[in-house]
Each structure stands twice: as C-alpha cells, then as structure tokens.
C-alpha cells in the first residue's frame, strides 16, 4: 500500500474550436486573442509565470527537449478568472483550464462553467466585428479534416505510486471507457478505416501506448509530469485521451469513474491487469464499434468486449470504494457508472439523454430517416459540428438540454455561480478570491503561486504548493478580514521573496 493522497484533486482543460463566419482574412490566433481579451467578468489580465512549469519533464523519470509547440504558448493573452480558472490562447485556440476541484461533481460543474465563459466572451467580442461576421465557438475536438485539439483531464496522484502501475491498469481502462466518454463523430480521420459514425472525436488520433507528446503521435498514457504542486509528494496524471463533453452527466461520470479507478490502482485494489494484445488498435476499434459488441483481443489470447471490461473495472472499483469507506465522494459515481453500463448493454439508444455520442446518433438517425441523407451528407457534418456550439440558442446540445431532452445535473444558477465564484475546497479559492478582490494588485499568477505588487520596492510572492490548502476553511477568514492586499499579505505572514 502506497502513501495515498487523501483525496484526488482534479480539473479539466478544454481547447475550443474557433471560427469567424464570413471573415476572409480569418486568423485563429488573432480571433482567439480578441475573444479572451473581450471577456468581461471577474478577472485579472496578468502575466502567467512559467517559472515553475516544465512540460518537458517526463513522468517516467527522464528529461526531454521542449517541443517547439511550447514556444507558441507565449502567455501573451492570459486571463485569470474570479472562479480560479485560467482563460487564454493556446496555439490557435481559446482554452479554458478549470480551477482545481476537490471532487468529480464539482469538477464537472466548473467544466460546464467554461462553456458559459466562452459564450459570454463571444457576446462581447461579437460587437467588435463588422456587420455580417460572426464568432462561432465549438466545444469539440476535431474539424473532421484531420486536425485535433484537446480536452484534457488532470488528476493529482501520489508520487509514491509507481508509474508502471498506472500504465498497467489505466491503458485498458482508457481504451474501454470510450463507450461512455465519447462525444461522437461522423466518419473517420487520420487514415483510419472508413466508418459511418464512431463513439469518439479523438480515438483516430492516438498512435502510441505511452509517451510525452500531445500534438503528434498522441499516446494513450501521457507522461507529462508537471504536478504544479510539491513534486516530492505529487504527480499530475495528464489524461489526453478523452473528448470534450457537453453532457453534464457524462463529464461527471468520466471524471468520477477515472478518479475512483486511480484511487483503486493506488491502493493496489485492482487484482488483475486487463492487458490488450494491441492497445492502440483497440482504442480505434472500440470507438468505431457502435454495437459495443466486437471482442477485443487480449494479450492472454482470450477476448472481451469493452462493456465486459468496464463491468469488470466497475466491480473492482466499487468493492474498493465500499471497503475504503469513501462513498461520500464515489458512492453516487458507482451508481451512475452501473446505470450507464446496464443501459448500454440493453440498448445504446436508452442513453441518448445522457451521453453525447448517443444523443448525436439519435439525431442523425432521425435526419437520415426523415430526409434520406447519406452519412457523408454536408447536413449531417454540420449537425455534427453544431451540436458543440456553445451559443445557448444555436448549439444543438443546448437546444436538447433546454427542451428537457438531456439529463442535467446543474441548474443555470449553479453554473452562473461557478463562473463567478471559485470552488471552496482547494487553493483555487484563494486564487479566485484574490482575483475578484485584489485583481489590480496581482502581477503574475501560476497554478502554485500568486505575485502581488503592493507598491513596495519588491514584489511579494505567495506560494501555494499544496492544492488542498488555500480553501475557504483555511483562508476564508483572512480574506474576509483584509481590506487591502497589503493587509492580506501581512495576515498570511512572511511568505514573500
């Protein structure tokens, strides 16, 4: 038994698709910059300090040259939000990195809040465009032409857990969880076999089992090792094999099942390894199989379907959750995991109100039946894109949800609250509250520090190396009592350099 992290801190990062209709000189970097700068909420436009970041660090223990793509992440346009999130331009996309959350339900809420941030930014940026032009922002992961952009999940795990254990157990889990993590897509890309419709946006782009890359030769297990926390204690598992989901239910299940699985792996509560003969091919195969019935060849010569593998993982993880007595966080996750597997087994169309891929497939089947469309009809491709539009009226997911056709977990008021206020259980609380209250004095921020300029000779840096500290229980009173950033820093005591 390793020295387990008491609770998995988690969050998501989403790169949004961006386009401006009828703009002949459209430049995605300029458009994304305009969008981020237009966002008018609680925010601080500050320098994002890269001092502590090292994306070239590898979880397997060896270093690596920085990829050129990192240089593009210049941090020129960067906003830290009052909810503790980071909103910026990454490559040619607007990206929302959620604040660190203390449980999967909260993380799903703050992921959803990101869509609201983008929609609000669009509303403001729209006024800068000439008549006839329009921003369109999609929470998706592919343009259907071979270009993919990410929706990453982050889980803070113990440094003491051998990384080989993560690879051994999580590879099969990630390949098979696609049956409930996919957002669906018409056709295939990146040279994969032709298919009418598949479960995920991303599977076609995965080409390696383990690796550091995120922009080419994408691996099932990504080894980027930037904990943004005490590196002696923590490792951040950076999961790149997932889709951006619109369904709240689906984001919750994806994050919850994965976090619980990681805890079970860490506690050595997974008794067997489900090792596939060819994991990368299995990732493509599972995504391409809407029947969910095709057997996967396992290394031991046997076969199992993705559903069977997920039933097995659920059984092991649910046993761990009940024995470890952490049902407060994961009890409900186990319930919805079981519910979704049972429904998928009976009839995948039963989950069309909870999983994006099934919601899309139901729509596409409806259109094909009504209008006699072929799978490659432009109208189906348009539906496939517009499902992801963050606009509350145009986005097809948003239409379905507004019409009561998608199960929701959060009210509009809760989501608006999560746009404005940080989660209370992590250091994101301190970051978000400082942005809201003392944003004009913040000169730089990072996941694990804030730098203040309070008019003194030197800048004052507040380190936040423990993600579970800095929550409301620890700093709420200090923040309430301080009227100025100088008072706050005095109350925090000597953490300056």
């Amino acid at each position, binding site marked *: 038994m390793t020295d387990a992290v008491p609770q998995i801190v988690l969050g998501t990062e989403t790169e949004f698709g961006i386009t401006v*209709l009828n703009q002949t000189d459209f430049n995605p970097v300029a458009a994304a910059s305009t969008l981020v700068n237009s966002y008018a909420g609680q925010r601080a436009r500050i320098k994002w300090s890269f001092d502590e970041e090292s994306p070239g660090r590898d979880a397997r223990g060896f270093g690596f040259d920085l990829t050129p793509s990192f240089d593009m992440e210049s941090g020129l346009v960067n906003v830290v939000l009052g909810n503790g999130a980071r909103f910026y331009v990454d490559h040619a996309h607007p990206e929302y990195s959620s604040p660190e959350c203390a449980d999967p339900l909260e993380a799903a809420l703050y992921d959803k809040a990101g869509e609201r941030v983008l929609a609000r930014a669009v509303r403001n940026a729209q006024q800068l465009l000439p008549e006839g032009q329009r921003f*369109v922002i999609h929470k998706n992961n592919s343009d259907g032409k071979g270009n993919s952009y990410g929706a990453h999940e982050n889980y803070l795990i113990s440094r003491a857990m051998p990384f080989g254990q993560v690879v051994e157990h999580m590879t099969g889990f990630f390949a098979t969880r696609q049956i409930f993590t996919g957002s669906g897509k018409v056709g295939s890309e990146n040279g994969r076999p032709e298919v009418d419709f598949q479960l995920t946006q991303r599977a076609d782009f995965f080409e390696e089992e383990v690796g550091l890359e995120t922009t080419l030769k994408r691996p099932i297990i990504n080894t980027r090792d930037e904990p943004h926390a005490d590196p002696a204690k923590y490792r951040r598992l950076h999961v790149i094999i997932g889709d951006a989901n619109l369904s709240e239910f689906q984001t919750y299940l994806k994050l919850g099942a994965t976090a619980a699985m990681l805890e079970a792996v860490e506690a050595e509560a997974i008794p067997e390894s489900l090792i596939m003969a060819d994991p990368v091919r299995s990732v493509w195969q599972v995504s391409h199989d809407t029947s969910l019935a095709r057997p996967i060849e396992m290394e031991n010569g046997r076969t199992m379907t993705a559903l069977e593998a997920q039933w097995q993982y659920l059984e092991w993880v649910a046993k761990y959750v009940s024995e470890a007595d952490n049902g407060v966080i994961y009890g409900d996750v186990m319930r919805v995991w079981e519910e979704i597997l*049972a429904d998928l087994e009976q009839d995948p169309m039963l989950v069309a109100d909870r999983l994006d891929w099934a919601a899309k497939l139901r729509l596409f089947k409806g259109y094909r039946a009504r209008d006699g469309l072929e799978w490659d009809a*432009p109208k189906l491709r348009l539906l496939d894109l*517009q499902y992801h539009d963050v606009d509350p009226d145009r986005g097809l997911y948003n*239409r379905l949800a507004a019409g009561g*056709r998608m199960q929701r977990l959060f009210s509009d008021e809760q989501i608006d609250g999560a746009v404005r206020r940080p989660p209370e259980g992590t250091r994101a609380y301190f970051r978000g509250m400082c942005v809201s209250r003392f944003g004009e004095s913040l000169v730089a921020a990072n996941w694990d520090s804030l730098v203040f300029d309070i008019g003194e000779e030197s800048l004052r840096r507040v380190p936040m190396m423990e993600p579970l500290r800095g929550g409301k229980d620890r700093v709420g009173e200090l923040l309430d009592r301080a009227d100025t950033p100088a008072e706050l820093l005095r109350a925090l005591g000597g953490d300056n350099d």
Partner: protein
Amino acid sequence: MTERERKESHSRESEAEEAADEIVAEEQGEALTERIDDILDEIDTVLEENAEEFVKNYVQKGGE
C-alpha cells in the same frame, strides 16, 4: 468473478421478463421517434444556413 458468472449475474431472470423488457423498450423506441421529429423541426430553425459552405470552411489548426 469469471466472465460467464458475470454474464449470468446480468442476465434476465426469466424469459417472460425479457419479453416484457422488449415490449417496454419498443414502446420507449416509438415514443423517442415521435419526439425526435419535433426536435428535428426545431433544429432546422437554428441550423447554419449553408451546410456545404460551413463544413467546407471549417478548418482548425491542431492544438494541445
């Protein structure tokens, strides 16, 4: 638990129940079809105008 045991534990208790489930699923299916036509009509009112043009011009740079 072996694969067979697992299958058994998830299998229906009797054929009668299975048949009943099928009828329920069918009814749900019909209800879904009725509702889907309504939603298609609604979606048609918000779909981007020129599907072919929109799809052709939708090119993203890679990211991550």
